[in-house]
């Protein structure tokens, strides 16, 4: 088992012919992800040449692609001005899971996208996220396959490379993962920490969870309350941005401390109060996870 993606994932790639889309489609195919189609308006009927002589059919619209391939998941690499529309097109076409990699989607666009996707009953991960990987099963997005291995730990994070750092530390210590999810660093994203915690709690193969948060907002505090009230599995946490000055946006659009809310110190304290083991530095995660497995 895993969460959100596994061997049954039948994936579309929106923006398959773009620079990032084509590169990562090849990487996903090499990992064994079942990429069943691509979408690029105006290129319907063509095929995308994958590794080892594989070919992926391209469609003009997501609706056409779903009808022809039975895809249940889509990953979006289209540029920011078109990303909101691409997400809503996918939700309308009836896939179950949308993973939006695109960075730089205007937040006001997301205020419209979120209710649209929700009303369609579709799960959105991202935007501005590295996607997901269920080691040995499926990879959707851009996470490097070389650093993961199958095992009992669920990983959920707001960031990309910081996730890689933690997964790398775990893998080096021989601790594998069920699924690694990057939910994205934007202020409004489709999937929250709590959504992932709930899925990991229900996943029989996941024995413990690592959660990496950062400054800004209150999602981590809500996640901590959820862990205390609803999780039987141990959770280890980390918060990035302890040295970040207030009022400055630290790269991620969501990483800004406004007023007294959203500081790292506050989040770390709430983690500790709710029974989440706190890693003071990334490499501490190994010992903390070993202690609970």
């Amino acid at each position, binding site marked *: 088992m895993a969460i959100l993606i596994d061997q049954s994932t039948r994936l579309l790639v929106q923006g398959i012919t773009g620079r*990032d889309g084509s590169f990562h489609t090849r990487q996903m195919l090499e990992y064994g992800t079942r990429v069943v189609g691509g979408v690029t308006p105006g290129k319907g009927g063509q095929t995308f040449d994958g590794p080892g002589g594989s070919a992926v059919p391209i469609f003009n619209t997501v609706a056409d692609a779903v009808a022809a391939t039975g895809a249940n998941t889509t990953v979006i690499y289209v540029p*920011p*001005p078109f990303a909101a529309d691409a997400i809503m097109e996918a939700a309308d076409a009836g896939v179950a899971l949308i993973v939006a990699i695109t*960075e*730089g*989607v*205007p*937040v*006001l666009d997301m*205020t*419209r996208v*979120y*209710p649209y996707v929700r009303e369609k009953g579709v799960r959105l991960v991202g935007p501005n996220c*590295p996607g997901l990987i269920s080691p040995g099963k499926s990879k959707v997005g*851009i*996470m*490097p396959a*070389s*650093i993961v291995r199958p095992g009992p730990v669920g990983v959920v*994070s707001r*960031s*990309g*490379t*910081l*996730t*890689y*750092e933690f997964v*790398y530390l775990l893998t080096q210590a021989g601790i594998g993962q069920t699924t690694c999810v990057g939910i994205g*660093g934007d*202020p*409004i994203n489709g999937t929250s920490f709590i959504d992932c915690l709930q899925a990991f709690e229900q996943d029989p193969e996941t024995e413990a969870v690592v959660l*990496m948060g*950062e*400054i*800004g*907002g*209150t*999602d981590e505090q809500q996640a901590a309350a959820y862990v205390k009230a609803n999780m039987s599995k141990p959770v280890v946490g*980390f918060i*990035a*941005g302890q*040295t*970040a*000055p207030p009022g*400055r*946006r*630290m*790269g*991620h*659009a*969501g*990483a800004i401390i*406004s*007023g*007294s809310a959203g500081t*790292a110190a506050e989040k770390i304290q709430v983690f500790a109060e709710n029974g989440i083991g706190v890693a*003071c*530095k*990334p*490499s501490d995660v190994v010992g903390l996870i070993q202690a609970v497995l």
Partner: protein
Amino acid sequence: MNIHEYQARQLLRAHGIPVPPGEVATTPAEAERIAAGFGGTVVIKAQVHAGGRGKAGGVKLAGSPAEARLKAEAILGMMIKGLTVRQVLVAPAEDIASEAYVGIIVDRASKRPVFMVSREGGVDIEEVAARNPGAIRRLAVDPRFGLLSFQAYQLATALYDDLKQQRACARILQQLYAAFVAAGASLAEINPLVTNGTGEVKALDAKMNIDDNELDRRPDIAALRDTSAEPPAETLAREAGLTFIKLDGDIGNVVNGAGLAMATMDLIKYYGGEPANFLDIGGSSNPEKVVNALRIITTDPNVKVICFNIFGGITRCDDVANGIVEATRRIHIPVPLVIRLTGTNEAEALRILAGAGLSATTSMDEVVQQAVALAKNQG
């Protein structure tokens, strides 16, 4: 992106909001001339991207044009929260009967634009929220419908008892919402929204923050950026496609990804050092980005060592290694470099560095400890 008060006032005025007149001066003589034009008492307000201007002495009343010159002289050039004041807004002083607060932010929790209004205006809204949270009325807007008339009226009744003022306020709230959306803002505030002696409702001060992700499709808004109001290194970084924030420490760092960059700063602090900056080179980095990153960091005289922490995913380690080698050839780097490279094309990267007499580690803990030790040795 931050814009100045006078720019936000212009945007609000363009949407029909009653904003008293005001003009910008960059010299005391200009302030005097503007004050003479208005006649009577004027207020001189520092235009900087910082809150608490009043407390810092950046807002002063002047009873005559000559006094306006003196007050402008005092304010122009002063430092407020590390920023130099280069412009002042000169506006006629208003006769104020009441001060309210109205604002919109994009709220992460409800994932919607949320209005906040309060009868307690003229002070920091965070202060009101902490001291008297019941004094703030909130309303989440469905962005597909905008602020509906009845909602605007509901909010207005929370601020005013007089029907005429309620109606004027409701209209302003809808205009504010329109301005917020049109500018691609993440925050828009009128603080204070005042009533004057004759009962008119007016926007006395305005603040807007723009979502950086909106700027590509709104060139008119992007043109409002005042690069003189931000540290030169940050302007340079933005133009080079890097995210850079200067800090006060002595350990420079170059990292890919915002989360890892924050964690690197934190680890520097954990091992007893002080980070000199936040710098994210982003994904798909080409060697040129690395050269620019080093160029920017080496302009900071406090920096004693530069620490690279790269975890290759989209970013290829060999690109970064090429950038480092290229930079050492093209620019003078007066401080030691310590390098960590892991991930995509790591072996190739290590070979490139070795060819130039540089070495690297694959551990984040190790590279940060090296950096802290080097910074200390150079005390």
